[in-house]
């Protein structure tokens, strides 16, 4: 673990989720520190997305708990929060970047409206200021200012992902969840997006949980890695340590299966 002395931002303990008779994920414990990027890797069906859903409180676990250190410094049990508090957390201190931008954006609303929504939800009522803030965030994610009034359905896949990130970043979250953020994008677009995310992590001290099946993404972005299989976290550790010297046979298989360029 990194610097055991400082207080983690989020502590998950024994998260277990069943879908009827099927196991989603079992007994997963995880700590996330401020400014830290944790990658969750594994094959499809290994419980990655379930874990992300649990951590972001969009799913309720059968057992286990999550404590989160709020902006006021107080650690709270997330599943004991009221729904209003949880929603507030999700749209201020947290972000969620979906693989499918349609889930994270309002496709019928302009780019500016998408970015401004969170600001309006926390009480901004000055059109000029909302627009200026939206413009500055579009610029930061490399979307031209003159696209501010265009709808995301006129945007390319890469732009949609970047718009999603701007929409999440506008309230300066401390923790962002990403579900395969580079899925379905071509390699050069992926690279730019990864650069952007890395930049935000450095500039804003953002912590992130990134679910990916792409070990290259994990290596490039994350400090720590969680390898999942059959709903369990089978190996955790520093990213380069796990990827360069995998201990578990399954992790070895996973690492060995990367095509060497």
């Amino acid at each position, binding site marked *: 673990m990194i610097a055991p002395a400082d207080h983690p931002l989020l502590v998950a303990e024994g998260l277990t989720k069943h879908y009827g008779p099927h196991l989603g994920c079992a007994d997963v414990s995880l700590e996330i520190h401020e400014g830290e990027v944790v990658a969750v890797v594994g094959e499809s069906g290994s419980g990655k997305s379930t874990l992300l859903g649990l951590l972001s409180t969009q799913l309720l676990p059968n057992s286990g708990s999550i404590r989160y250190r709020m902006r006021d410094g107080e650690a709270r049990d997330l599943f004991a929060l009221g729904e209003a508090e949880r929603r507030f957390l999700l*749209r201020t201190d947290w972000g969620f970047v979906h693989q499918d931008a349609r889930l994270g954006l309002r496709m019928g609303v302009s780019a500016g*409206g998408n970015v401004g929504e969170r600001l309006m939800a926390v009480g901004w*009522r*000055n*059109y000029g200021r909302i627009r200026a803030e939206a413009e500055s965030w579009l610029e930061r994610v490399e979307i031209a200012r003159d696209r501010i009034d265009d709808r995301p359905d006129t945007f390319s896949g890469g732009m949609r992902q970047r718009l999603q990130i701007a929409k999440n970043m506008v309230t300066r979250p401390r923790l962002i969840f990403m579900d395969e953020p580079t899925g379905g994008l071509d390699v050069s677009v992926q690279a730019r997006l990864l650069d952007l995310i890395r930049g935000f992590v450095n500039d804003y001290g953002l912590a992130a949980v990134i679910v990916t099946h792409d070990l290259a993404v994990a290596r490039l972005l994350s400090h720590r890695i969680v390898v999942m299989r059959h709903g369990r976290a089978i190996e955790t550790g520093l990213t380069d340590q796990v990827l360069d010297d995998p201990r578990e046979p399954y992790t070895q298989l996973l690492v060995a299966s990367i095509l060497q360029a």
Partner: protein
Amino acid sequence: MSDAASYNFAYLDEQTKRMIRRALLKAVAIPGYQVPFASREMPMPYGWGTGGVQVTASVLGADDTLKVIDQGSDDTTNAVSIRKFFERTAGIATTTHTSEATVIQTRHRIPEAPLGEGQILVYQVPIPEPLRFLEPRETETRRLHALEDYGLMHVKLYEDIARHGHIATTYAYPVKVDGRYIMDPSPTPKFDNPKMDMCPALQLFGAGREKRIYALPPYTKVVSLDFEDHPFEPTKFDRGCALCGSEGIYLDEVVTDDRGGRMFVCSDTDYCESRRAEATEGGHALHEVPR
């Protein structure tokens, strides 16, 4: 034997009226909150005021005087047939004068003459949910209301300004009721929004197809949503009524021929008629009616 004898008073059976009154009481207790009710099949198609008619039927008493307007007018088909419907089924008095009415059913206008205590204004509502076009899921919009999560509503106004340079919504302009619920004032022109605020009359809203009732008790604070730098502005007209000369009222455009001739007249026919009657009594000449 009168026609009324073959129906229960005001068409609906007493159990239904009690059910609707219970919904109304709840709606009055929680201003702006949409109360579900078991809307009945009425002898008219949805979209013709089935919600309003059921609310009216439930609040009418034998000594009430009913006025019905459709876009401000007492003499359009919808207004005339609903008025006749209650004349036949309730045998109550009807009027076209705003000041004489105790119950006014309206489709999309608030009369120009100020309403007073003891009057009831019943709105016909097609789509009661102000967030509907932004969020199609009813389960989600209910949750948004419950949690007072209203950022979305301002997104719509934001989009208006981004696209048109100003808030282009001119009717069904969303309002916040008593500092809590966001409410669709039914498709009344935004010109009428200020009249809802602190109105001495009881305002009831019925949506028959959507099976919702909501209400504004007398003297409820009703604020039209806006931005600090784009404040709410009611529609203004640069002219007066071509018939009665009134200004500062809501005007209808009437096409008078097929060569582009048109005139602007009061949308509220009762208001226009009373103004003209006053003018004749006072010895003023009537305005020329353009041919």
